[in-house]
């Protein structure tokens, strides 16, 4: 369906950069506008990859969490089993995808905070590195402390 979501986001960024930005003289709004255009450009390219990333990360977290020994208590094991068994979910329901992903992130965060043996910590860390490497949106806005 045209314009696609990506085309609309990229087009909005172009209009802001080419039509609006030249008319903005004050340095603060001009700087904010530059950051906004950069963000729109980044998500115009990457938004389409986000659902697949969330699904991949969720599946990997289920795998990592399932391999933990005492890192999960009985309640959390029950929650994990329910999330893993949710086979009837609609893969195109983005809200459900985000909610499941967030629940798994919570289980992983709790497991790490509880203290894991070194070998399990390394396995978790290996996944955390991989999920960072695969994160689909490339930051274009400067971070605080960067210039």
């Amino acid at each position, binding site marked *: 369906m045209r314009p696609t979501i990506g085309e609309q986001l990229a087009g909005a960024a172009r209009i802001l950069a080419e039509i609006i930005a030249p008319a903005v003289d004050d*340095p603060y709004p*001009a700087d904010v506008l530059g950051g906004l255009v950069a*963000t729109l450009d980044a998500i115009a390219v990457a938004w389409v990859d986000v659902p697949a990333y969330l699904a991949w990360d969720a599946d990997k977290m289920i795998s990592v969490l399932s391999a933990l020994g005492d890192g999960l208590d009985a309640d959390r094991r029950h929650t994990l089993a329910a999330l893993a068994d949710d086979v009837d979910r609609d893969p195109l329901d983005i809200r459900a995808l985000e909610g499941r992903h*967030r629940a798994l992130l919570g289980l992983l965060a709790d497991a790490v*905070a509880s203290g894991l043996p070194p070998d399990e910590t390394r396995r978790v*860390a290996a996944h955390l590195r991989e999920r960072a490497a695969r994160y689909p949106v490339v930051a274009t*806005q400067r971070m*605080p*402390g960067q210039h």
Partner: protein
Amino acid sequence: MQTAIEAWVVDELDDPAARVEGLRRTSAGFSRENWEFDLVRGGAREPLIARRDPVGSVLETDRAVETAVLRALAPTAVPAPTVRWSDPDGRRLGRPTVIMDRADGECDWFVLNGSRPLETRVRIAHDLYDRLADIHLVDWRAAGLGSVFDDPGQDAALRAVDHWESVLRRIQLEPQPELELILRWLREHARPAEVTTLVHGDFKPGNALLVGDAVSLVLDWEIAHLGDPVEDLGWVTNPLRSREHRIEGHWEPADLIGRWEARTGLRAPTGAVHWWNVLANLKLCVIVLTGTHAFVEGRFDRIHQPPVSLCRILLDMVDA
């Protein structure tokens, strides 16, 4: 804004003829609103700057504390901004604000790797980090800072972890397994501080002014506190910030620490510096997430992606 600042200035000076001219908000700074203006009075023109709390920010700090630090530093060797008037309650401009003298000078984040000759850049590095040593040499008890801050004593490292973890808990929008791992490592490897000093908290070339090739002012004291001086060394030797703080082959972390140890007479054990390097990047992650929290609530004007690269660097730093 113009009317409100002018009313404040007129009131402080008890001079109805005082005027504010050339008011403009600059783009510098992520944590405070910076409003530059000239105070025109009796034919004279004085450059001033008002630093006002924004609605939302990457840092939540206290103007009353910042004002107290700057006033305490006025009689010391540390070149810090001069406070004119402070309104920590926000009665004047709607939000807490400090008005300071606006000093001349060049602010260049990457001056150490800029276009000046190598010898000049190394000289600037010496001058800059000698100012950091001078901050750590401030007699904070005599300056009255003991009534502004708690002295964390030997527990400065754990207190810093407590502080940044409490900020994280307040602002995180979703679980952060990477940061949980780092927090655990920090607690398990924390070292006792050998001494308590004033700590700047965000020392960098971008928070200094140069006149010619000399450092004239150290800026941005909003997260200053009492703690372990190695915290500042961990901040300025953070590998992630090497473009700002190092001159490859000529001003390396070992040079910086050696010169600092010689000037202060204090020690910076390698393991402690590394620990504070890790804390520095955790702090950066929390700062980014604080901005994201404020953005989602409609209180901050910039959008940051999750700090995934920083998290990856942190995992490498703790060898997880």
